């Protein structure tokens, strides 16, 4: 008789990367038909553990039981045959392939040497219907939304006959509405008898979606709990290992002079279509202005225009009383603008460069960092050393390439570089994207500190919670226009949600 309730048991798993123990004696049990959340900070070893389970990494020690049998998952094919399927955080999709091709890839149905796409399509349509995963099989993956791409990933593992599904940070890329739909989908999957592991660091989702939660910290098991028995705060403490302030206190700050004054800003996007259609707002010192909205409603273009990365077609940008419309990036930066970009790896950092060099990117050309075009290494290193300590950047050395650091520490490097320059205006675009609770708390505190110093902060974020917690005022972008301005204490998620979809509320005052 095999034990059917425990579909997976991972016992005393150790994974050693050249002396660094990413997993150190971790235990995990997955019951049949449940949603188990795997909670831990970035770098705690969640992904390593799941890579071991899905055959991408070999454990140094420990044993794995699937449905009561000892197994060695030595490659992804073994995992597939055991019915284990993983939906990766960074989707493993071919953008130029159709949805159908993506789903069957590696598991093709053929007739003779030829692919039998018709038969595959029938099978996939049945699966989509069964689990409510609607997606057009003949569309190119590059042309569908991120939420639909995720469905393709789910269909991919279901098509391979998986009944144990692992989701790695599945909601990081989704909008609030899509998250609700996603949670609905995994609940249905669990009801159909699939067993699900949900890797996440979002406490709220665990509450909504999971039955039990296994917490790991710094590569070690902390414990497994019934979700119903624990609070958000206690989970956060278990994960981080210290008390975490979930609700930040926002002291009263006296407003200073107007730092940013944007009038009738109009910008075209890459395709030449109007992305901002006449946006007007201002921002004063000691104030955080939140810009809410669904991704793709002009946020990218707004930030790019403010930082000089995109041409402004009409309107005016005044920073500290000086006209900065269509000025060069460096001139804008030097006029007192700090920029925390949304994509830290693409725009915020040069990944192969060292920590020290990345920290010097904004002032390497100035004295004392360089003279006569020659870099002064010792100054750059001292500067880096100082910032690493001041901003608590966890790295084994300032000469390590930043690509070796965790996401949270990479973000801290950007924060350190940008905030250390004492700029009057701080443009923070998705400053906590993909970070864990501890890192989010840290960055939010930094922003509030800058606010207390009288800096003007423009916070553009797709996370409603973040906007609501930090902002003094909120403007909502919809389709290139400001669809409303609200105060966080006088609004609700529902009202913001409506504004985000373009429903204007009566009595809304526009700045």
């Amino acid at each position, binding site marked *: 008789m095999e034990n059917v309730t425990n579909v997976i048991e991972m016992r005393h798993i150790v994974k050693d990367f050249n002396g660094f123990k990413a997993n150190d004696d971790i235990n995990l049990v997955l019951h049949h038909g449940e949603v188990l959340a795997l909670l831990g900070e970035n770098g705690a070893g969640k992904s390593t553990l799941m890579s071991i389970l899905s055959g991408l990494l070999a454990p140094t020690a420990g044993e794995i039981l699937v449905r009561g049998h000892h197994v060695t998952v030595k490659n992804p094919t073994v995992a597939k045959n055991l019915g284990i399927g993983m939906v990766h955080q960074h*989707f493993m999709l071919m953008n*130029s392939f159709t949805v159908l091709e993506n789903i069957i890839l590696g598991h093709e149905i053929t007739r003779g040497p030829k692919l039998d796409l018709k038969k595959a399509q029938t099978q996939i349509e049945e699966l989509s219907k069964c689990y409510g995963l609607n997606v057009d099989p003949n569309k190119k993956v590059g042309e569908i939304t991120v939420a639909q791409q995720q469905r393709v990933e789910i269909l991919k593992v279901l098509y391979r006959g998986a009944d144990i599904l692992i989701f790695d940070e599945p909601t990081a890329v989704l909008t609030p509405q899509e998250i609700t739909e996603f949670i609905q989908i995994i609940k249905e999957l669990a009801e159909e008898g699939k067993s699900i592991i949900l890797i996440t660091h979002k406490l709220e989702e665990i509450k909504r979606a999971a039955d039990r939660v296994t917490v790991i910290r710094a590569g070690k098991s902390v414990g497994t709990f019934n979700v119903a028995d624990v609070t958000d705060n206690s989970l956060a403490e278990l994960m981080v290992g210290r008390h975490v302030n979930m609700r930040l206190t926002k002291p009263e700050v006296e407003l200073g002079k107007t730092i940013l004054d944007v009038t009738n800003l109009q910008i075209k996007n890459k395709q030449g279509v109007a992305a901002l259609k006449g946006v007007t707002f201002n921002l004063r010192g000691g104030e955080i202005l939140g810009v809410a909205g669904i991704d793709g409603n002009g946020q990218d273009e707004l930030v790019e225009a403010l930082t000089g990365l995109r041409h402004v077609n009409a309107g005016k940008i005044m920073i500290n009383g000086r006209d900065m419309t269509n000025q060069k990036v460096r001139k804008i930066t030097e006029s007192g603008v700090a920029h925390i970009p949304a994509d830290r790896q693409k725009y915020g950092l040069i990944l192969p460069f060292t920590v020290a060099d990345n920290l010097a990117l904004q002032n390497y050309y100035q004295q004392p960092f360089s003279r006569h075009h020659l870099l002064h290494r010792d100054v750059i290193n001292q500067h880096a050393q100082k910032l690493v300590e001041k901003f608590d950047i966890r790295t084994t050395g300032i000469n390590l390439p930043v690509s070796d650091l965790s996401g949270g520490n990479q973000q801290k490097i950007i924060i350190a570089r940008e905030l250390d320059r004492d700029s009057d205006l701080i443009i923070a675009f998705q400053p906590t994207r993909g970070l864990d609770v501890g890192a989010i708390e840290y960055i939010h505190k930094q922003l509030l500190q800058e606010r207390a110093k009288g800096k003007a902060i423009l916070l553009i974020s797709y996370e409603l919670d973040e906007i609501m917690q930090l902002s003094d005022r909120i403007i909502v972008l919809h389709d290139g226009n400001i669809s409303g301005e609200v105060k966080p204490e006088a609004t609700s998620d529902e009202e913001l949600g409506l504004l985000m979809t373009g429903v204007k509320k009566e009595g809304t005052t526009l700045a």
Partner: protein
Amino acid sequence: MSLVAILSLLVSSTFVYSAPLIFTALGGVYSENSGVTNIGLEGIMTMGAFSSIVFNLTFADTFGKLTPWLGALVGGIVGLIFSLLHAVATINFHADHIISGTVLNLMAPPLGVFLIKAIYDKGQTANINQSFGYFSFPVLANIPVIGPIFFKNTSAPAWTAIIVTIILWWLLYKTRFGLRLRSCGENPQAADTLGINVYGLRYAGVLISGFLGGIGGAIFAEAISGNFSISTIVGQGFMALAAVIFGKWNPIGAMLASLFFGFAQSISIIGNQLPFFNHIPAVYMQIAPYVITIVVLVLFFGKSVAPAADGQNYIKSK
């Protein structure tokens, strides 16, 4: 000259000059769709040309009319072996694809000339007696108008190339092998997680390009130049590479682009026999194919989209 005569001259010489480009460009399409940039096509063609001429000179008496075809096959095999260098360097040792390809291009001509010197004790080979020549299709050649233009005194290698194109298009887009090969050029990490053998398929892509590039070089040598010297392959490999880009990394597109470049090349050779073109100074006609290649690349390079992971090394984690 009558219009039919002009057209048949144009089409047949376009075909003759296109055939080497089509084969080589198809090779490029396969290599790049598997994710390995192959600028070494020029060097591969050189090795194909060299080996086919040596084979042709040695075995012409034994194999008679079959010699150029067997020579092309030999050129293909030598090209395949030569491309192994590129495969090992880029796939196993994660070398930069451009640098590895450049090594092939720098190595092939002197190697060929050195071996010619060693074998024949002179700087270039004698002319071959068994070349591809012209071929007329039975029956089809007698169709009025179309027959003389397309099927009479035409290039058999070019027609073979067109058939091979269709087969390779089908292989790339309609079979499991093609789907998997393309997945390695699009997102090798993802392909790996799906249990696809990325290294193996990239080897397949590069070796196919070596084989086809070798055939391309052999056809050029045995149909056009007639011998082998340091200046036999001068830019045809790069034209084929341009055809890959112009043809959007698709076999059919690459074939059409090769026909266009073949046309440009043939115009420069037969221009003096054609009305209008015979008034243009010869030097302009001779540089035309290269200028057209550059212009096409400038116009299309930014617009056509390469396989996403083309030229990127894939390092499997342990």
